[in-house]
């Protein structure tokens, strides 16, 4: 059976992902290993503890931001 996909925006670019994709899966898909990565969903910060349970929905705008710790 073919999996349903949805269209979201990641870092400003359109992206098709399988329906039900979580933030954790999205981060893994992009191969990002920054432990302190900041993920934003529709302008709102997503707690890292919620990556595994937060699912993206059609039309979502996702940004992944590397934190700035220099001074």
């Amino acid at each position, binding site marked *: 059976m073919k999996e349903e996909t949805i269209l979201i925006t990641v870092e400003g670019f359109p992206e098709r992902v399988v329906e039900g994709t979580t933030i954790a899966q999205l981060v893994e898909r992009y191969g990002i290993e920054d*432990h302190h990565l*900041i993920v934003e969903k529709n302008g709102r910060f997503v*707690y*890292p*503890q919620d990556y595994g349970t937060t699912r993206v929905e059609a039309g979502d705008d996702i940004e992944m931001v590397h934190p*700035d*710790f*220099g*001074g």
Partner: protein
Amino acid sequence: MILPDIGEEGQRRLKAARVCIVGLGGLGSISSMGLAAAGIGYLRVVDCDRVELGNLNRQFLHGTDDVGRFKSDSARDRLLALNPEIRIDGWNVKVAQENAQDVVGDCSLIVDGTDNLATRKVLNRMAVQKGIPFVYGGVEGFEGMVTTIVPGQSPCLECLFPGEDRTVDREIGVPGPMPGVVASLQALEAIKYLTGIGPALSGRLLLIRALDMSIHEMQVDRNPRCTVCGSMERNRG
């Protein structure tokens, strides 16, 4: 002050304030000058490093004559030259959990000028514990971020970056003016908080990207499971 939003009362509040700036590199250079010139009554400037020639592209507080001196001494001299009417202490100490209370515990506001997450977490914990506002700023390359932590109202740094510090120790290069952009915003947040105008960046993380000259903001809610501000609140009652 001729600014109507600040006025004489605002200026009096600035004079009565005690601000601690931890880290006197790129960020601390600019925020400390902004706050000294604004007339903050007492500034404590803290850093344990010495000035190096390679610092000078962005650490405008120090000059070539200061190379080899402690940054806390160099900063104190420069800031007093800028405003001899205020009190400035230069503390040559490395901030850690053990001494954090001595360094920032008696201040009315903390400005972040550090260059690592571990020290920021120490400051954040002390800020939340003592109810002292903490203006976080960070830079990396052509990017920077700022937020103001108001204990009891806004999310804290642990809400944003939970868990143990797993940052990789590496040299982070920045173009000279970049820390100044972030540190100027930090100084503005400090002035607004202290004068009663109120910080605008409480619960908002401002992201500055200089490559495309864009500024973007992210809404951040308090994390009820936060091990720092969440647990302290639970303990209080």
